[in-house]
């Protein structure tokens, strides 16, 4: 038996360690992929594939019942000629533009209050979160009751201050403000996220600021907001996307079964129009094109927000 050459070059210890590390990393990667594969498969089956397929459908005339007929870009051309697309986009932009900042401000204000609540914080945290548990359909119905121009609680409250409240549910000028206010019903989840972020702000920063003579507003603006900017950005971006996709409450209140014939153009949001085209008029091809347009719009706004966030959002441990 030949003896191995003793003078064969030995593998350096560094390289051996590196190889072992690579093997371990490969094993871990494989294990990780295996563990998350149910999600990945679910994602491809229930999200990626429908997205890809809707891209194909957007190039067809498809009524869900018969086979799709390829029509090229006709559905996309129609988007630009359809007055209701313009109206739905206007309504949706208006809603998102007002609702998102208001939602974030109210969430932050409530979180700041809760942060000071002391022992009763637990109770208030639950109290603020409970409305979030209300199904959106119920919120839509609730809107019609609370904002009823004749006997609704909102107008009654305004009446205590001598204000004659508007016809929130029929006057096109007031329909969207009513929906925006109603959306604040579900700020609970955002409040909890911001509260968690507030609890992570180091107390030393406030102590130092107080020593330097900073008042509450200065502490909030100079310390709190920057330190929780990551959480604020998350809420901002998620709500922007949700704003563009707003559907259930407005549909229930103004287009759903509770209002079989009464509707209001002022509440015709983009996704409502998309739903009408898909499931009421059976224009699934056109509805798919509408969905892709919305996807592009959301992508553009999200990209803008991501770029802007680089300047304003601070992440813990980040060096600038």
């Amino acid at each position, binding site marked *: 038996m030949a003896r191995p050459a003793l003078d064969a070059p030995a593998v350096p210890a560094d390289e051996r360690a590196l190889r072992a590390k690579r093997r371990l990393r490969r094993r871990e990667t494989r294990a990780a992929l295996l563990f998350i594969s149910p999600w990945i498969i679910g994602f491809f089956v229930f999200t990626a594939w429908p997205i890809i397929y809707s891209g194909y459908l957007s190039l067809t005339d498809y009524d869900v019942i018969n086979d799709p007929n390829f029509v090229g870009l006709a559905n996309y051309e129609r988007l630009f000629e359809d007055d209701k697309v313009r109206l739905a986009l206007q309504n949706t932009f208006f809603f998102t533009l007002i609702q998102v900042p208001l939602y974030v401000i109210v969430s932050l204000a409530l979180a700041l209050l809760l942060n000071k609540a002391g022992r009763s914080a637990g109770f208030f945290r639950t109290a603020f979160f409970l409305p979030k548990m209300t199904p959106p359909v119920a919120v839509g119905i609730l809107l019609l009751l609370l904002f009823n121009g004749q006997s609704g609680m909102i107008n009654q409250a305004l009446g205590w201050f001598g204000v004659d409240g508007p016809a929130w549910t029929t006057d096109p000028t007031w329909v969207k403000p009513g929906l925006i206010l109603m959306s604040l019903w579900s700020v609970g989840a955002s409040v909890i996220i911001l509260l968690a972020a507030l609890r992570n702000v180091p107390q030393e920063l406030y102590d130092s600021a107080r020593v330097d003579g900073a008042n509450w507003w200065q502490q909030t603006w100079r310390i709190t907001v920057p330190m929780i900017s990551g959480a604020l950005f998350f809420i901002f971006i998620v709500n922007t996307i949700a704003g563009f996709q707003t559907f259930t409450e407005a549909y229930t209140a103004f287009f759903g079964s509770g209002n079989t014939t009464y509707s209001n153009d002022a509440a015709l949001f983009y996704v409502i129009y998309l739903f*009408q085209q898909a499931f009421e008029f059976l224009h699934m091809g056109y509805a798919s094109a509408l969905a892709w347009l919305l996807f592009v719009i959301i992508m553009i706004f999200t990209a803008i927000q991501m770029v802007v966030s680089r300047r304003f959002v601070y992440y813990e441990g980040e060096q600038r």
Partner: protein
Amino acid sequence: MTRATARWSALVVAAGLSLGACASGTGDDSSSGSGSDDENSITFDPEAELSGELNVMGFGATDEIGQVRLDAAKEALGDVDVSLIEGDLDIQQFLSSMATETPPELIYANRDQIGTFASRGAIIPLDECIEGEGIDTSMFREPALDQVTFDGSVYGIPEFNSVQITQANQKLLDAAGLTLDDVNGSNWEAISAANEAMHTNDGGKLSVIGFDSKLPEFLPLWAKANGADLLSEDGRTAQLDDPKVLEALEWAVSIYDAQGGFGAVKAYRDSADFFGEGNQFATNVLGAMPMEQWYVNVLNDVSPDAPMAFDTVRDLEGETIAYASGSAWAIPKGSPNPEAACRLAKTMTLTDSWIAAAEARAEARAEEGKLFTGLLTGNAEADDAIYEQFVKPSGDATWDAAIEATYEANDHTFVLPANPADSEFKTAWQDAVNRVLNGQQEPKAALEQAQNEAQEALDAAWAEWDADEG
């Protein structure tokens, strides 16, 4: 990304995509996958012994009217296993089942959906079912049958019927020195005057609605009362810009304007306890309105002592009219058991089945000490028999008048013809009315816009149908 990561990712992507492809169910394979598509193999025979499954989508036997007839149908179906997918027909659910080629055997739909379903090939013509099972279509009310007849073929078996009658508060009429004739539709000036006399609006706050013209839903009723139809008889031409439709809309809207605007009336209407004992008639805060006949049952149940008065709705010539709607049975394309579906549809709508159901209802009402107000169906023969056998004078002239008005209205109905763009047509005219009610547009401009939208949708849908048929 390492090579191994790339390999794993590719594997997962491939698995996801291939599984996704399997799940799509909307391939180009034009065969429906059900044996029933081979129409030659279908034999509709009243004597045939049937078996298999029968899934009915959109129907629930929630009361004795449904249960008694369903029991009769199950008996006629023998070994067939009947399952109900209850609740109103869910269009998304139905379309999904069609897209995945797993349609239910039978659906229960609104009659105004039949034209659209038929034009898309979602449901099959029932001519063979009618002939094979020996269904006597002469017993059906003509307008109901018209509503389910598309391009010369019957696609649905009519079931219930719904009509409007004039429902009024006698106390408010008396206080204003008015009679039912002032609010039954025969004279619009009289209605406007009655509305003026009965409504109360203190400082912008409405406390009594004089007359509710029930827009947007009843525009077809007011247009018909003025001698106009929203859609041509063949279902191809929108007539929304007809001057008579415009006149009807302007008048019906003026009723709201006189009371402080639609917003005020709707807000007040929405705040009412519509189904409870504090309803607007019982609390004397609504003068009159046209309303479907089922509301008579509600009023009689919850507020039998309300000061009510009833008449039919009348056109400007004084003739009774009613805008009918209702339900129908239809068999989806690819139904795995169309023979059983046809048998069930037939049995549910047989005169004898309706009579048995009415008898059960009349007995149940008698046990509760309540009035049986009759039953309106798409079957004229059954309606007559039920009226003769079970509708007895109650001794209360008010409620008896309601029943009389209901049956008279049922004999004077009209419908919007079946068409392939029903939903878009309806949306077009309802949106137009809503734009006017919301103060966004003048009636003329709104109806002109609606006419364009509706006609465009009709033209496109009919062109597709004509091309397929041609």
